[in-house]
């Protein structure tokens, strides 16, 4: 009996872990403890089978040929879009665009929406905790349009300084770009309240849900968000695939971003008219196999229940906080476990996070060390990097214990 199964938890961890073949291996002669889920999660057999099944039986380009295989792959591709629509709570499948990931989804919004709607003097409000992929695209479009970037600060606890939000919003604010959950701190942000205040000044809100979608139920209508981006590879799905949700009226009003095949209605030698949604934003051949298999990932998470997954992760984060509490010089970044997804980022006085990451790798424990693509956030804390353990539905309390013991052992050598 595992340690985890002794605790009140709605997840059947033995059954879940049995679904993930990659977890059952040794690295450096030790059982793998995979705690780098915020970077990329692992895939259950159901998703692996779906990927293989597509390539073995159904693969052909979508929305192209009138032949049988293309018809089948197109139907499955569209069924996957409907699954994503259900997962997000979107009103129409036309609002669900397949992209290559969160980064390409945000770049699409920044460039397509931004080029049509931003002018000199306009303001884009971001936050101090954004991943570079929800920061750099806005900087790029700001440079092109003359718009300015402003940032909502965070508190010492790693929460958004919500009391400062009203003072930063004005009629000049055209876009608010915010993450639903931080990839470093884990902080779950009050998206509904941010959207409400932003809409009062007429701003559009784009939500980076890359770290939220894997861990908590999402309802884009309840959020009233204008755009939402997520990545399949962080939610037991394949890499190379993301979703851009956008309100239909906004997507219809903005110009296409990438030009090419599929996104057109008609083309002459010097002009084109764009296709209807969602094809308008799906130029070129999409990641077909990944998109079709994404349905299996969504169904896997839905079967277990996102509420149950978040509760499990928060239990693991709470346990990690408890076990790390008396490690000398160790500081956990961010808020209390109940205010965040299952992410525990930390620093230790005088010790490089990279050293900790390399040392505990030899004990089979996979974490990430570095700036986690959030250099401004680390600068806010006066540090260059941190070590991050990130939990998911298949992690156990026993793995948290192995992780903490490995950190303690590494620190005895590094101190």
């Amino acid at each position, binding site marked *: 009996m595992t340690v985890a199964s002794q605790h009140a938890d709605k997840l059947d961890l033995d059954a879940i872990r049995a679904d993930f073949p990659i977890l059952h291996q040794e690295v*450096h002669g030790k059982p793998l403890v995979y705690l780098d889920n915020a970077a990329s999660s692992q895939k259950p057999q159901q998703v692996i089978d779906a990927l293989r099944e597509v390539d073995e039986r159904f693969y052909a380009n979508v929305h192209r040929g009138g032949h049988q295989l293309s018809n089948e792959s197109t139907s499955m591709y569209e069924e996957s879009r409907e699954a994503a629509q259900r997962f997000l709570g979107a009103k129409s499948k036309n609002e669900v665009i397949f992209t290559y990931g969160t980064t390409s989804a945000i770049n699409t919004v920044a460039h397509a929406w931004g080029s049509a709607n931003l002018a000199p003097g306009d303001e884009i409000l971001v936050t101090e905790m954004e991943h570079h992929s929800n920061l750099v695209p806005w900087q790029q479009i700001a440079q092109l349009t003359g718009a300015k970037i402003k940032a909502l600060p965070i508190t010492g606890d790693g929460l958004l300084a919500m009391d400062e939000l009203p003072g930063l919003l004005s009629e000049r604010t055209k876009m608010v770009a915010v993450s639903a959950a931080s990839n470093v701190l884990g902080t779950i942000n009050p998206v509904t309240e941010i959207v409400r205040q932003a809409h009062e000044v007429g701003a559009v809100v784009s939500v980076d849900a890359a770290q939220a979608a894997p861990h908590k139920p999402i309802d884009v209508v309840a959020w009233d968000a204008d755009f939402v981006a997520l990545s399949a590879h962080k939610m037991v799905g394949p890499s190379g695939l993301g979703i851009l949700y956008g309100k239909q009226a906004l997507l219809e009003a903005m110009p296409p971003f990438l030009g090419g095949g599929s996104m057109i209605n008609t083309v002459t030698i010097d002009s084109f008219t764009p296709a209807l949604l969602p094809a308008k934003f799906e130029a070129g051949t999409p990641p077909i196999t990944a998109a079709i298999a994404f349905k299996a990932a969504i169904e896997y998470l839905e079967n277990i229940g996102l509420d149950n997954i978040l509760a499990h992760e928060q239990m693991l984060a709470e346990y990690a906080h408890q076990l790390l509490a008396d490690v000398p010089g160790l500081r956990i970044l961010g808020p209390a476990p109940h205010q965040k997804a299952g992410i525990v980022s930390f620093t230790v006085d005088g*010790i*490089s996070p*990279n*050293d900790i990451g*390399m*040392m505990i*790798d*030899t*004990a089979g424990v996979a974490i990430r*060390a*570095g700036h986690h693509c959030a250099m401004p956030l680390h600068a806010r804390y006066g540090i*260059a990097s941190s070590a991050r353990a990130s939990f998911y539905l298949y992690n156990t309390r026993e793995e948290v214990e192995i992780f903490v013991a490995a950190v303690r*052992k590494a620190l005895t*050598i*590094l101190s």
Partner: protein
Amino acid sequence: MTDIPTLTAAELVEEFEFYDDPMDRFQFLIELGRQMPPLDDAYKVEAFRVQGCQSQVWLVPQASKDGGQLYFLGDSDAQIVKGLVALLAMLLSYKTSEEILAYDLESLFDQIGLAQTITPSRANGFYNMVQRIRDLAAAAKNNA
């Protein structure tokens, strides 16, 4: 003149054969780093920084008193990386630029299985350090 402890290829092979557990190898590297003389902050500038490393790494060439040999100072904010800097400095210090350029580091590192100890992204940074030392040796040779 600052003294850099020396390490021969034979000694390194022996140490790595003795420490076959990766954690012990890291500990050995960290100990090497601790044997290096401290690097003056004046050297921790862009001109001496090795690019492409996950951590901050500085590598400083020095000429021996008679000018015939090179030795290397270095530092890093990460202890394992500092150990790798020390490994190179201890293997290659107090040699002529010709000797440094002729030194077959690749065979030595294959022999000790260094690739199993350091990750690929770390290895890129490490080979940037090796390349930096060779560039410095080549420049010294051309100036001689």
